[in-house]
């Protein structure tokens, strides 16, 4: 079972966590994965998902950093 880390700017409730798991399933195709949720306020808004050493940055921080060329 692969581990997945999910970062959000605030604490997610159980319904939101389920939706995130569903989103991961739709993206990866894996029905089961070990998902851990973390809070990272520096994201400002959105989500950051790290799955199988790959990062899916859906955060506002990532968008702002891309402006800077980082």
């Amino acid at each position, binding site marked *: 079972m692969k581990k997945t880390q999910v970062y*959000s*700017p*605030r604490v*997610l409730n159980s319904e*939101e966590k389920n*939706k*995130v798991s569903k*989103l991961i399933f739709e993206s990866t195709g894996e029905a089961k994965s070990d998902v851990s949720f973390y809070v990272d306020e520096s994201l*400002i*808004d*959105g*989500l950051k998902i790290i799955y199988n050493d790959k990062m899916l940055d*859906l*955060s*506002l*921080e990532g968008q*702002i*950093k891309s*402006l*800077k*060329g980082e």
Partner: protein
Amino acid sequence: MQNLGLDWKVLIAQIVNFGLLLILLKKYLYKPLVKAIDDRNKKISGALDDSKKIEEKLKNIETKEVELLNLARQKARKERDEIVDIALKEKEKIVDEARVSAQREVEKGIDRLESAQKEAVKVLSDKYMDEVVTELYKRFTERTKKNNYPILKSLLK
């Protein structure tokens, strides 16, 4: 004869006198006169010959002059054509060199402009981007909290 009134002695004397007169005339008048006329004729004939020779020479000279003029014209035309040809080639060469040089200058100018533009963008980016990013962080942090994280909401619809 005497019946005719002629005296033999007088007649003979007159004949002798006339003969003497003829001899003297021939010696002192007729010969020099004929000689002078012959000399003059010869001179005239010589002058006419000279004149003809001079005319022929003049014609020859004119012919040669025309030939020389034609040759000179041909030579001048040939030299002019050569000079024009050389000048045209030189002109083309100069124009080509100028075109290449201008093209190089334009390319150099474009390179310089691009470098200056990149440098300006880099300087501006370095100078203002940190400020812009900091400002964006600040504004969005406040706004997203107020609006209850709209991107997150949109992702988890």
